[in-house]
């Protein structure tokens, strides 16, 4: 019988269950004739067993509260460091391997946003429902007047604001309008449309303080919204393009607004 020689790697693979059945039988037969190698394997097995005896108790320990919290609730978003923002501005983050810089691309647990952000999201959903069906006048100022649109909304909002470009996702900017938010303050709504007629709206309001939150998700009547706070502005991106696609669009909006 012609047997392949048994290598050191074979012995470990035998122990670790990595050998195909046929080879395993060959090694079994070889070990029967090699008491020294068999003893060595028993020693290795004892070591593995000893590791379990040493550390398996950890599995039965109660999970510390801080770890449970870290697992179930996403942490506060970390602010982009200056260099990271500069890198983003230089377009480095669009390169494949690092697409989506991790510091601001995570999703918070559903429905655990601050109350005020969630209210903003609900306003955004309501505004979406009201204006998206408009065929003739979906916007007050059309995208063609881009500079005017940004200047006008910035002035009324009391804060520089410009519509992100979502062509990369297949959405063209239709334009924007000014609305009263829930407390009567100015809110901006930008509307986008893709080739199939799906529309997205980005709703922007001022907040009273400077805050940052995670991306949050909410949904009502088949309409989805991702919303977040960044600096003095609240954002909500609304659409019915599916949660994943909307999430991707929200990341893109965030990325552009961060610059």
């Amino acid at each position, binding site marked *: 019988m012609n047997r392949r020689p048994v290598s*050191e*790697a074979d012995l*470990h*693979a035998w122990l*670790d269950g*990595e050998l195909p059945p046929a080879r395993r039988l060959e090694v079994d037969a070889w070990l029967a004739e090699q008491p020294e190698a068999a*003893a*060595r394997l*028993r*020693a*290795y*097995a*004892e*070591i*593995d*067993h*000893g*590791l*379990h*005896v*040493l*550390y*398996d108790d*950890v*599995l*039965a*320990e109660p*999970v*510390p509260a*801080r*770890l*449970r919290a*870290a*697992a*179930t*609730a*996403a*942490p506060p978003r*970390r602010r982009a460091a200056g260099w990271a923002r500069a890198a983003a501005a230089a377009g480095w983050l669009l390169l494949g391997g690092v697409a*989506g810089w*991790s*510091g601001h*691309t*995570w*999703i*918070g*647990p*559903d429905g655990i946003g601050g109350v005020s952000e969630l209210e903003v999201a609900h306003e955004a959903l309501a505004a979406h429902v009201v204006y998206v069906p408009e065929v003739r006048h979906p916007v007050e100022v059309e995208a063609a007047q881009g500079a005017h649109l940004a200047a006008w909304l910035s002035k009324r909002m009391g804060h520089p604001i410009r519509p992100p470009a979502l062509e990369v996702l297949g959405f063209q900017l239709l334009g924007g309008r000014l609305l009263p938010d829930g407390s009567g303050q100015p809110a901006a709504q930008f509307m986008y449309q893709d080739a199939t007629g799906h529309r997205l709206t980005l709703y922007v309001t001022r907040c009273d303080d400077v805050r940052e939150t995670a991306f949050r*998700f909410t949904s009502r009547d088949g309409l989805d919204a991702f919303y977040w706070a960044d600096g003095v502005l609240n954002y909500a991106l609304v659409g019915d393009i599916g*949660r994943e696609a909307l999430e991707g669009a929200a*990341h893109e909006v965030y990325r552009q607004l961060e610059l």
Partner: protein
Amino acid sequence: MSREFGAALVAEIPRLRRYARALTGDAARADDLVQDCLERAWSRLHLFRAGSALRPWLFSILHNLHANAARAFSRTPPGVDLDPDALGEAVAPAHDVQIELGELERALHRLPEEQRAVLLLVGLEQLSYQEAAEVLGVPIGTVMSRLSRARERLRGLLGGVEGPRLRRVK
């Protein structure tokens, strides 16, 4: 999706803690590492491929965090195995082949970092060679050679050609 992800993370905590405890030998440091790992997992959720195994992915995050932290404390160039024979010379071979768990634990932490990680991933966490290679970001052949060296080094440190017989001393 995020709620399911959170539940899946909770389910992995005991395994992450066991690996981190064995890797660091320090309960508090291990839990810090696990916490960092969980937070990093959230921030990298978009990089997790749906349908792929969560556990190796988490182990790889934890491993990278640990390696980065270890690098900050050590001048040992990362990715370079220490000469395994140089370590053993300080340890006289034990006359008694019966070893204690404490000896195993001390010997484990005398191993070069790379060897300890491979031994724990395969011998304790029972990852496949392929999974261990992915966790550590090295070729599968490197996993096998490190594993072989780790086991042989431990066997030497524990002084047993016959193999250690473990008895629990606590």
